[in-house]
C-alpha cells in the first residue's frame, strides 16, 4: 500500500484527513446504479463504423481525383504546346477577326437601322417560337 502521509503534517491532522476521505469514499450515493454500458459501446461502434466507411469512400475516391487531375494537366499541356506551335497562325486569325469585328462595328454604328434589326431579330424569332408552343399546348 502506498503511504502518502507526510511527517510535517501532524498526526492528528493526518488522522483527520484519512477519516474524512474514508467517510467520503463510503458515501452511499456512490452506490447508485451506473449508466448502462451497452449504449456507450454501441454508440462508439456505430459511429466508428460510419467513420470507417466515410474514410474508405474518401480513400476510394482519391485515385479517381488523381486521374482527373492528371487528365486536366495533360489537356492543359497539350493546349499550351498547341498554342505555341500555332502561335503565328493564331495571331494572324486574331488580327483578321479583330479587323472584321471593327469593320462590322463601324458598319453597324454607321447605320442604326442595321443595329436595331440585329437586336430585334432574335427577339422576334423567340416570340414566334413561344407563340407556336402556346398554340400547340392549347390545340
Amino acid at each position, binding site marked *: *500500500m*502506498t503511504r*502518502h*502521509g*507526510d511527517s*510535517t*503534517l501532524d498526526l*492528528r*491532522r*493526518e*488522522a*483527520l*484527513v*484519512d*477519516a*474524512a*476521505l*474514508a*467517510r*467520503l*469514499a*463510503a*458515501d*452511499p*450515493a*456512490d*452506490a*447508485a446504479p*451506473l*449508466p448502462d*454500458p*451497452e449504449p*456507450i*459501446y454501441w*454508440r*462508439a*461502434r456505430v*459511429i*466508428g463504423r460510419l467513420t470507417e466507411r466515410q474514410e474508405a469512400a474518401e480513400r476510394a475516391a482519391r485515385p479517381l481525383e488523381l486521374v482527373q487531375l492528371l487528365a486536366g494537366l495533360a489537356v492543359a499541356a497539350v493546349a499550351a504546346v498547341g498554342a505555341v506551335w500555332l502561335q503565328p497562325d493564331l495571331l494572324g486569325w486574331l488580327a483578321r477577326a479583330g479587323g472584321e469585328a471593327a469593320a462590322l462595328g463601324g458598319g453597324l454604328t454607321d447605320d442604326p437601322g442595321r443595329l436595331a434589326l440585329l437586336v430585334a431579330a432574335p427577339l422576334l424569332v423567340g416570340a414566334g417560337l413561344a407563340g407556336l408552343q402556346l398554340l400547340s399546348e392549347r390545340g
Partner: protein
Amino acid sequence: MIWSLALGAGASAEADGPGKGARRRPAGDGAGTPADARPEGASLDEEEFTALYHRVARPLRAYLRRLTGDPERADDLLQETFYRFLRADRPPLDDRQRTTYLYRTATRLAQDGWRRAARERRRREAARPEPEGAPPPDRALALDLDRAFRELAPRQRALVWLAGVEGASHREIAEVLGLAETSVKVLLFRARRRLARALDRRGLAAEDLR
C-alpha cells in the same frame, strides 16, 4: 486501488462497494503485470468492454463526483470517458495502462469547462429550496465534509482522492494528472494540509468521522 483491481481483483471491488474504507488498493504488489495485452478500441468486444466497465466505472464515477461536485455531470463524463476510450486510436494497452488512460481522460474532461460547470452547479443549488429544519446529524456531517472537500482546487481534489482513496502511487498520479512525478509529493502535501485546515475550520475531528 483500481489500477491493481483491474489486474484481477475487479470482482471484489464491485462487491465491496464504496463502504470498505478509504483506500481501495488491496494488499498486493499494485504494480501490475503485462496482463492481456492485445489490440483494443476497435477490437474490444462488448463482453470485454462490459467487464472493464464494471471493474472501473464505479470508482471512476466516485472520483468524477468528487472532482465535479455534481452527480449528473459525473455520470455524463463517465459515459463520455468510456466512449472516448472505445473510439481512441492507440496501440494496445495493458490493464494498468487502460485504467490510467481512463482516469486521465476523465480528469481532462472534468477540467474542460470547469468554471462553467461550477457556475451552473451554484446556480442550481441557489435555486433549490432550503430544507426546513436542521438536517439530521449524519446529513449535516456529510454536507460539512463535502463543503470542506470542495474548498480544494480541482487538481488538489484529484490528488487527494487518487492518493487517499484510490491508493495510486506517485507515478500513477503523475500520469493521470500530467504532472512531474517529483512534484506530486509536494502538491499532495499541500492539498492534504489545505483539506485538514478546511476540516478544522468546521470543527470536525477524526472521532466524529468514524
